[in-house]
């Protein structure tokens, strides 16, 4: 949308880019019509004859030895399939990075809601009743329920120190840098769990195939993750496992690794019963049992000069991984690498640990560890500004990275550095300086009036404030991740001569399929509608890697662009003339199919030159490139109720190139609101290790009435290795809202919270402590 997009002055002159007809245009979504008419079929919309309904029996204690599992003889078990760990044909594990998590607990449970037994029946109500007819006896053990208890080793959940992973990033002479600094400023920051809260709960359907394999359909981000996990679980060769994505009602990371669990459960029930089995979680179960954002504690010590120049950073990051490893080391890695924020440091040391607790395993959530450490460093920037008496914007301006600067991992920022651009544009668009001064004036006037007994007529004591935040977000897998993934993408021709994109990356709402149509259409010079995108189905698409880490467009999009170029070259050579539009393409394609047979082109990921990473020292190019975001949040706080109302949000984000501006703005708006929710209201509360508020009545996410107007400006500073210059956009917007909200509240009230969410309860306590 034109109003939310501006070309950047740093964008190369147009002659260097062939300006495409489809790329950069807001074409209709491929899945749009089906979604607005109700025709799109999500997993629970499929009609499967003879299907059984599956249910999971879960633990009720956080740490215990299982003494016995008994099926109540008074219950009628006729027609019920019952599966426990002894029914597993392969290895009893959820194979992700490690194999530490059992698919079904056998001797011990390490968190509440850990799966122990599976049940399936034709009648959904009977199976639900059966869950309470399973009696489990435990010998309880002392649990470690949060990261502090884990660090204290209140219980040993993992190894002899509870540590899943430790990362050290060191650069420069830290001691010397602190000695040289005018001041040392310290802070400690906390953030809690957050639930992804896709509106479609996790759902999977499993069926045995005639050839002795398994076919799984369901709501997921990464079919090949499930494919890998199921081979291990069922002891099957790859070709006997088929994983197919159905239309997916949101993911945000919550359907990155968890589908291997629910998919594995459905598969075990199908394996034993010989019938198709569907497991559809209800909201209570999904909220209580599935992965969440890792809670974190970040301690920061910085050395700064009196003029605001940042010198030294010493950060200590601890994340709570929950009871099993899942993706925790990778989450920690991203969190650690982002802990220095978007700034230059002469010397930095980042020490990061992920620890195990007796709580449900945490996993992927948009931003993947970075929002936690960025919340800390951005909050800390505001603390530095306050201590130095500097404007927070001026402090950021002074220290934000520029082209050629070096990050704590030693990565030289060689191109596409939008930090200053997004900062300035946000400040200007939000009228930051003017608003800041105005709110200060108005707040002072209100306070004076209240003192004089002449407050607002309705008696409310309202204060307004504006806060900013800035972040950079590495796009694609961290470090050597992309090379290890070794992604393969393919493009072929359907019998009727249409190009068909074959990738395992999934449409989960972000618009992937539409954008892939644009890319191929653009290269081939044909209408994007003519391009098909195959359903991610491991029988029919190669492994182009998972749909995570803001990599789909930037990395896989690049592979598909290359595929399309290869196809174009082949067809043009064959036709002996350039392709002239859609009809011509179809003619040539059909002739090729007739004369030469099928046409399929492939492209494997190749590491761009000049990118080096060392996993042992954590030094090198952590990412091919970073995307940049700045935000300004305006709030109004009621001093008596401590409620915070979001007034307005302005954000500028450098994403390289917007292939489809409306979809990009959609990502930014949606991610921003998730960040605002995390900052203000989303709090997972536990009681004895059990998620206590596992329903939408008390785990609150923003509604349309809570959502502020979000003014988005897309900045485009192209990246040479992204298709048409594009960088990842999926996670970036999640990075900035939370610290900006806290800064705005501090500006409004003078009260700075170091822990989110800033619920009225938490803010009230802080206001009372300060004696407001």
């Amino acid at each position: 949308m034109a109003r939310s997009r501006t070309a950047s002055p740093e964008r190369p002159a147009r002659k260097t880019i062939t300006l495409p007809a489809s790329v950069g245009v807001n074409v209709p979504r491929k899945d749009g019509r089906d979604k607005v008419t109700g025709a799109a079929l999500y997993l629970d919309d499929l009609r499967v004859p003879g299907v059984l309904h599956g249910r999971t029996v879960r633990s009720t204690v956080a740490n215990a030895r299982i003494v016995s599992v008994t099926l109540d003889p008074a219950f009628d078990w006729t027609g019920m399939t019952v599966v426990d760990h002894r029914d597993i044909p392969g290895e009893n594990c959820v194979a992700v990075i490690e194999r530490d998590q059992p698919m079904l607990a056998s001797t011990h449970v390490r968190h509440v809601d850990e799966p122990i037994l599976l049940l399936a029946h034709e009648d959904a109500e009977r199976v639900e009743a059966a869950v309470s007819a399973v009696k489990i006896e435990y010998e309880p053990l002392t649990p470690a329920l949060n990261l502090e208890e884990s660090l204290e080793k209140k219980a040993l959940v993992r190894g002899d120190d509870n540590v899943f992973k430790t990362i050290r990033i060191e650069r420069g002479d830290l001691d010397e840098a602190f000695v040289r600094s005018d001041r040392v400023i310290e802070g400690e920051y906390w953030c809690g769990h957050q639930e992804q809260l896709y509106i479609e709960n996790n759902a999977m359907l499993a069926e045995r195939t005639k050839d002795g394999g398994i076919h799984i359909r369901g709501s997921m981000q990464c079919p090949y993750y499930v494919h890998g996990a199921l081979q291990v679980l069922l002891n099957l060769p790859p070709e006997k496992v088929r994983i197919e994505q159905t239309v997916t009602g949101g993911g945000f990371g919550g359907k990155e690794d968890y589908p291997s669990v629910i998919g594995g459960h459905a598969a075990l029930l199908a394996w034993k019963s010989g019938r198709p089995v569907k497991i559809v979680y209800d909201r209570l179960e999904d909220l209580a049992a599935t992965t969440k954002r890792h809670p974190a504690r970040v301690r920061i010590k910085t050395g700064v000069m009196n003029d605001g120049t940042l010198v030294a950073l010493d950060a200590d990051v601890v994340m709570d991984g929950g009871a099993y490893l899942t993706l925790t080391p990778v989450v920690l890695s991203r969190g650690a690498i982002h802990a220095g924020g978007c700034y230059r440091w002469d010397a930095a040391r980042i020490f990061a640990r992920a620890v195990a607790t007796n709580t449900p395993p945490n996993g992927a959530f948009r931003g993947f560890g970075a929002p936690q450490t960025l919340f800390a460093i951005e909050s800390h920037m505001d603390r530095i500004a306050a201590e130095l008496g500097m404007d927070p914007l001026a402090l950021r301006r002074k220290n934000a990275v520029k082209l050629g600067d070096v990050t704590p991992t030693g990565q030289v920022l060689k191109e596409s550095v939008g930090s200053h651009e997004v900062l300035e544009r946000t400040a200007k668009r939000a009228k930051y300086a003017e608003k800041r001064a105005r709110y200060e004036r108005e707040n002072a006037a209100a306070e004076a009036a209240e003192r004089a007994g002449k407050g607002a007529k309705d008696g409310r004591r309202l204060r307004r404030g504006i806060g900013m935040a800035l972040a950079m977000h590495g796009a694609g897998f961290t470090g050597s991740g992309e090379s290890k993934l070794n992604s393969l993408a393919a493009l072929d021709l359907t019998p009727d001569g249409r190009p068909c994109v074959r990738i395992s990356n999934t449409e989960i709402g972000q618009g992937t399929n539409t954008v892939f149509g644009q890319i191929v259409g653009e290269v081939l010079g044909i209408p994007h509608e003519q391009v098909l995108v195959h359903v991610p189905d491991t029988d029919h698409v190669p492994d182009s890697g998972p749909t995570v880490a803001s990599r789909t467009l930037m990395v896989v999009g690049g592979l598909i662009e290359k595929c399309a170029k290869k196809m174009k070259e082949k067809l043009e050579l064959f036709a002996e003339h350039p392709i002239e539009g859609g009809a011509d393409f179809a003619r040539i394609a059909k002739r090729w199919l007739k004369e030469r047979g099928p046409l399929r082109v492939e492209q494997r990921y190749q590491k761009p030159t000049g990118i080096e990473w060392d996993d042992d020292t954590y030094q090198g190019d952590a990412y091919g490139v970073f995307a940049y975001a700045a935000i300004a949040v305006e709030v109004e706080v009621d001093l008596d109720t401590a409620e915070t109302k979001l007034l307005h949000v302005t954000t500028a984000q450098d994403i390289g190139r917007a292939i489809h501006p409306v979809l990009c703005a959609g990502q930014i708006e949606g991610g921003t609101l998730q960040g605002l929710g995390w900052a203000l209201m989303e709090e997972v509360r536990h009681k004895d290790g059990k998620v206590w508020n596992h329903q939408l009545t008390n785990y609150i996410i923003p509604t349309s009435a809570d959502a502020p107007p979000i003014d988005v400006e897309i900045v485009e500073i192209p990246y040479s290795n992204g298709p048409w210059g594009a960088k990842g956009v999926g996670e970036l917007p999640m990075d900035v809202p939370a610290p900006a909200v806290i800064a705005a509240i501090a500006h409004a009230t003078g009260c700075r919270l170091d822990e989110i969410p800033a619920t009225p309860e938490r803010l009230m306590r802080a206001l009372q402590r300060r004696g407001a």
Partner: protein
Amino acid sequence: MDAAALVPCTMQVNGDARTCAITPATTLLEALRYTLGLTGSKQGCDKGDCGACTVLVDGVPTLSCLTLALACDGRAVTTVEGLADKGVPHPLQDAFDRTGGAQCGFCTPGMLMSAYALLQREAAPTRDEISHALSGNLCRCTGYTKILDAVELAAAELRERAK
């Protein structure tokens, strides 16, 4: 299931009389989705919190997960499948599609029904009125901006048509 416990229920669904055999405890959402095969209406919580199951009963937006099907016996029920006119999407559907109001699409059917009911009673709602009318429908993807844009756009188009 005990077949004897089934009772007949007849509703005008999207303009057609539909009869189904259900238990007295069957919710309207279950009857629509699993008995009548109209899976457009979604279940996001089954507790009245998310709005994904919103349909119109006699024109009034109703959470079908909290409504017994039998309570709708003899009444008119409109679901997302009933919005299009002979295969032509309603301007509201079209507007959601064009503005990016539907991402994952799971909240969309319920959102559309709430918006439709709003536009039935108010041809020119303000942005605040729209966001208020939709505040019972959760969306986790869009941040709501493009949903509000879509309703404004559809309202303008419908007003234009009515001229």
